[in-house]
């Protein structure tokens, strides 16, 4: 993993997140700072291009609203749009390798690492918390781990990804644009109070 | 026409009110009229009234597909004001406001025009700039308008949220003291009674299904109660303007949208003016029954369903609770929607149509109620003389081709 430049500040750093613990903790909130995020646009009918990306460990989900879990996680955003999520600092490599792979083809690769931040919502009441402001059907049978959707959380646009948490249950990643991060965090933390809130830093 | 007064009321009390006669007749349609007005809302009834009263045209029928005043007249939030930006609209709405001021006596029917003042809130200096531009224009056009700073606003309407640290604190407001509210049903009923007394036939449950056009000239209308000949036809059907226009082979720059409103359960009056905010986006007044009468923006899609989305109700009551935190525990009693005819420039069309003898009065969008008397007055003039009154001359259909729009989005932004 690439070493992180200490001068970089995550969107929620100004919050100086104070760890809070509630017992029982219905909801556990944390910021996943600086995840690499590269937006990809191209025509996936082009099998050669798809293959070239796969060679880089960038495998497109076969279904809409799907996610391919790997070191380079690929989130479906639209018919010709995906978000490649990597460990912090890996975005540069993805950008450079992928643009070589797609050279000569109509495509767009855009570094959005700082455009978004990522908030992790875990715990038994995570779904109930999201349901306070998200119109999606988040039931496990409809939105299981490995799904992604773009929708609303309260008054804010988000990309919502569902993953397996340690305990084998589900947890959620919310990608929101940087300027909305603090508002979204406050909204989530306030809404989580009735369930018991733990903040992990 | 039996006169209404405290004395006739007392006299009738002695006979158990069994001797009152009907406020207007319900005659069967004749087979010919000089003028047929399509649409028995406030605007249509006012048009018929002024045709009879000021132009001596008394062989007039008002055709209403349902019951008079049953459309937007009976569904709106009854705000009356004239503080529009441009000269053309200022003249139109001020003409109307002046008629409002004498309407109860004119009609011998209490329309309860309550000049309790209308405030348009500004929440920052950018909004203030636009609102001040408007009140300067109002003043020069002879329309009363004044600027209230923050303290004056909170003094004039103490139930407003005066906390300076909220998201959009009160910065200031325009106030038109002559503005206010009126009793919507009374306007329809009062004009109906007045028009009827002058010989106008008011025909309900009579839906127009087509126009008879003979060599480019109107000859009459087809209705659910048979054909009716007419030398001239005036159409005032708000949300249904497009439907009628299509029958006449015309296209209009109008879309029909749902506009929702709601009232609270009746409360002891605590709010004695009308407050509107574009930024927080809602407006509110309290009726003489004690209900808070509330509305906001139109739904942004075409619909004739008189329904609209619940999200609009959510946003509206969010805005109301933000502006009036003490109303949070008050109950919503009833919500509903009208369908409004929205023009691209948020100004109406009151004009002759390409078909001779056919006139349309439409495009009032979310703010037609306030214009009821003036709209009827100038439309009657336009029909009687086959040419517009100077006041409605700018409000043509042709302006959309030439580009001479009257862009009143600012003055009409928060729907009312």
């Amino acid at each position, binding site marked *: 993993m690439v070493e992180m430049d200490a001068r970089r500040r995550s969107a929620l750093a100004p919050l100086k997140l104070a760890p809070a613990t509630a017992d029982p903790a219905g909801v556990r909130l944390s910021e996943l700072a600086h995840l690499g995020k590269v937006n990809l646009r191209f025509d996936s009918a082009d099998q050669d291009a798809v293959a070239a990306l796969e060679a880089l460990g960038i495998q497109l989900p076969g279904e*809409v*609203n799907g996610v391919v879990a790997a070191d380079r996680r690929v989130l479906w*955003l*639209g*018919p010709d*749009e995906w978000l490649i999520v990597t460990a912090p600092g890996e975005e540069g490599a993805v950008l450079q390798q992928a643009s070589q792979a797609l050279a000569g083809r109509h495509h767009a690769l855009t570094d959005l690492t700082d455009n978004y931040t990522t908030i992790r919502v875990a715990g038994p009441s995570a779904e109930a918390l999201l349901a306070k402001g998200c*119109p*999606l059907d988040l039931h496990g049978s409809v939105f299981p781990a490995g799904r992604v*959707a*773009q*929708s*609303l959380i309260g008054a804010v*646009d988000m990309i919502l990804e569902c993953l397996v948490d340690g305990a084998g249950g589900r947890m959620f990643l919310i990608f929101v644009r940087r300027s909305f991060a603090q508002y979204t965090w406050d909204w989530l933390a306030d809404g989580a109070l009735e369930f018991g809130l733990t903040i992990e830093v | 026409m039996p006169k209404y007064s405290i004395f006739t009321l007392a006299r009738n009390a002695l006979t158990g009110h069994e001797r009152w006669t009907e406020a207007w007749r319900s005659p069967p349609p004749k087979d010919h009229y000089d003028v047929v007005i399509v649409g028995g809302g406030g605007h249509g009834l006012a048009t018929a009234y002024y045709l009879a009263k000021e132009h001596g045209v008394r062989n007039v029928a008002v055709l209403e597909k349902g019951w008079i005043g049953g459309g937007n007249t009976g569904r709106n939030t009854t705000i009356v004001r004239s503080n529009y930006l441009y000269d053309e609209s200022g003249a139109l709405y001020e003409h109307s406001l002046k008629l409002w001021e004498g309407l109860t006596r004119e009609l011998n029917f209490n329309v309860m025009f309550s000049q309790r003042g209308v405030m348009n809130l500004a929440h920052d200096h950018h909004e203030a700039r636009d609102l001040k531009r408007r009140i300067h224009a109002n003043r020069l056009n002879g329309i009363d308008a004044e600027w209230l700073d923050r303290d004056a606003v909170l003094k004039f309407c103490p139930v407003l949220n005066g906390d300076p640290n909220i998201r959009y604190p009160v910065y200031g407001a325009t106030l038109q003291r002559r503005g206010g509210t009126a009793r919507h049903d009374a306007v329809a009923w009062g004009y109906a009674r007045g028009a009827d007394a002058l010989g106008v036939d008011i025909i309900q449950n009579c839906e127009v299904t087509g126009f008879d056009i003979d060599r480019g000239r109107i000859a009459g209308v087809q209705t659910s109660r048979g054909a009716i000949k007419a030398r001239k036809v005036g159409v005032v059907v708000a949300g*249904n303007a*497009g*439907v009628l226009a*299509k029958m006449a082979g015309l*296209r*209009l*720059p*109008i*879309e*029909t949208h749902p506009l929702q409103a709601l009232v609270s359960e009746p409360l002891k009056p605590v709010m004695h003016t009308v407050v509107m905010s574009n930024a927080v986006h809602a407006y509110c007044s309290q009726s003489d029954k004690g209900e808070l009468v509330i509305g906001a923006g139109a739904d*942004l*899609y*075409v*619909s*004739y*369903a008189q*329904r609209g*989305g*619940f*999200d609009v109700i959510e946003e509206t009551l969010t805005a109301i609770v933000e502006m009036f935190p003490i109303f949070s525990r008050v109950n919503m009693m009833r919500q509903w929607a009208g369908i409004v005819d929205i023009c*691209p420039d948020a100004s109406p069309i009151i004009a002759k149509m390409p078909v001779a003898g056919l006139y349309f009065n439409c495009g009032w969008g979310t703010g037609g109620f306030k214009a009821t008397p003036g709209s009827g007055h100038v439309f009657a003039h336009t029909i009687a003389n086959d040419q517009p009154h100077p006041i409605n001359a700018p409000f043509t259909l042709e302006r*959309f*081709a*030439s580009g001479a729009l009257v862009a009143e989005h600012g003055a009409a932004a928060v729907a009312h």
Partner: protein
Amino acid sequence: MMQITCPWCGPRDQREFRCGGEAHIKRPADPASTDEAAWADYVFMRTNPKGTHRELWNHVHGCRRWFNMARDTVSDRILAVYAIGEPPFDPDAAPATSEGAAQ
């Protein structure tokens, strides 16, 4: 509160969408030589039907794609959603289904 089926993302709440007004409006091929009336018809005049309306919607809080939708403006039933470029929905050709019910 409608439920709209985005052709890409599937059924979603109306809140995620914004209506873009009437669809299939032809932009004059050569605006410069289009007369004022015809230009105004394109820019301002609308069909505004009481019945089947073919309109543009944008999944603005979702995948940001624009698409066509046919809706009955009296019942607000959705008759069809279809991609940009597809021929205008013909109410007589297709059987009506309610998206609200279908979900």
